[in-house]
């Protein structure tokens, strides 16, 4: 056997490996979203990207965020987007989805990325070595109904307003609606 005698599987760099797989999902999915020719496939790449981000949250010890990411983005928003895609005309037409300014957008994106990375590299982040407390969910509940009570209530107002607005918009009556 080639294993050293003091082999300890907990020393396998599991976290970086998972990190890179999730990066593959997230960034690969994102590139798919902006470059796919079929809109429906863009939506599926978006799901892949969301999934990768959920993996990030697990690595960042934010289990609640990870599950919420899956539940809200994959389970709800992605479905909504795919529904909307199905609604639009010729969602599978393999035509270029980019507009005329795409050649301008590309260098702009690269400049933006470089600027961001340089900024990230130039700041000395005050990283604290502390571990988060075990039950973040409970903390969240106390925060929402304590110091963040007003955002909490505003969220419900925002959601119901969004719901009402969206229903008004989506229900505009048009003749010749197919009823299938």
């Amino acid at each position, binding site marked *: 056997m080639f294993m050293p005698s003091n082999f300890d*599987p907990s020393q396998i760099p599991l976290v970086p490996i998972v990190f890179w797989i999730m990066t593959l999902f997230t960034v690969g999915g994102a590139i798919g979203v902006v470059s796919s020719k079929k809109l*429906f496939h863009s939506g599926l790449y978006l799901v892949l990207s969301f999934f990768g981000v959920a993996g990030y949250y697990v690595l960042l010890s934010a*289990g609640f965020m990870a*599950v*919420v990411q899956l539940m809200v983005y*994959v*389970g*709800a928003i992605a479905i909504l987007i795919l529904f909307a895609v*199905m609604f639009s005309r010729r969602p*599978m037409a393999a035509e270029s989805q980019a507009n005329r300014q795409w050649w301008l957008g590309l260098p702009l994106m690269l400049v933006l990325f470089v600027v961001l990375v340089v900024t990230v590299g130039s700041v000395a982040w005050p990283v604290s070595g502390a571990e988060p407390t075990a039950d973040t969910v409970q903390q969240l509940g106390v925060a929402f109904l304590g110091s963040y009570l007003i955002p909490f209530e505003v969220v419900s107002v925002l959601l119901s307003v969004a719901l009402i607005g969206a229903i008004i918009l989506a229900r505009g009556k048009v003749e010749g609606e197919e009823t299938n």
Partner: protein
Amino acid sequence: MQGVIDFLVSLNIPYVNASVARYIVLQVLAAIVAVAAPAGLIILTWLERKIIARIQDRLGPNRAGPFGLLQAIADMVKMFTKEDITPAKADRLVYNIAPGLGMFAAIMAFAVIPFAPGFAGTQMNVGLLYIVAIGGLGTLAILMAGWASNNKYALLGAFRAVAMLLTYEIPMVMTLVMVAVVAGSMSMVDVVEAQSGMWFVVSMPVAFLIFFLSGVAEVGRSPFDLVEAESEIIAGFHTEYSGIKFGMIMIAEYVHMFALSFFTAVLFLGGWQIPFIDVAALPAPFAAILGLISLLVKVFFFVFVMMWLRGTLPRFRIDHLLDFGWKFLVPLTLVLLIGVAFVIRLFAPGSSVGIPVAAGPLSGLGMPGQVVALLVTNLLVLGLALVVVSSAARRTRSKALRAVSAVDSPVPTAGK
């Protein structure tokens, strides 16, 4: 589980220290779950055919093996050796991914189930939300399958399925919130332990019924099987699937049904608990075996109930189904949630951790009082809902009657 780990370490196998042993045990448990969940299909399909046959006064499968026990295996062989046809117009990649994704989602749901005292793969403190999150992947798989088939029936089936899944997910999530409120935690292990005094099915029968009903709808089984209503839209979202890919969709459906039974047993019937016996206090091997048996008995009870439902009830119509979900279950669960949260807060013990909180005014009554109060709340809310519904129905009926009589006699009868 700790016992098994200690045992492995005590064997003094080279390289096997505590953390290696832990990984080995977890990995073996994962392998068992990943294989047993789809393999349970063999028993489930056989059971289903036998039970449905009994209900319909037939014999059911009785050729392959004793009592037809090998029927499912024969079916599997058939699935594997059938030609797999991909429609020429299909979106090939998505078409091929969808069944696998559905199967993945169904099996992954088992990750958070505590099988016996100390035997849980994870004590994740967001277990209840995890169930919902993984369920979302299944919905996505159905949408993908229906869309990629490029078949009108499949697309229509997928739309129906997704509309129904979304509708019934809300009452399900709200009952999960109620469970979290009563258990004070979102971890499945804590939920089971919170039921050591009294199963939630006793204190929250209405929440239990709603959970099970919407669960059956989530699984897409009869009477909620208009996802694949054969007589209306051929086979719904999997019209175009054949061979093993059809088999995979079927496996996903059965695994999902199995998982739902596990969830219902764990969340409302005390998981591995047995009434009047403190399972966790027994010596380790007995506790594990007895706990697992107790859980499986409950699981198969729910499996049986689901088959019974399928054998007895006709299919819902889609508008009735959606109306039932949105106009009855969702308001009912919201009101019930408010009631349950109120009762639990009234009975809550005080806490001095962090911000000190005064005890609820009724906390002196203790556990029995809380159970009775929850039960009364549940029944009151249900009674209220039924009164509202029946009065609304009466109003609609009399309106319809008036409309009919107005047509019959265009000249209104003069005066009284």
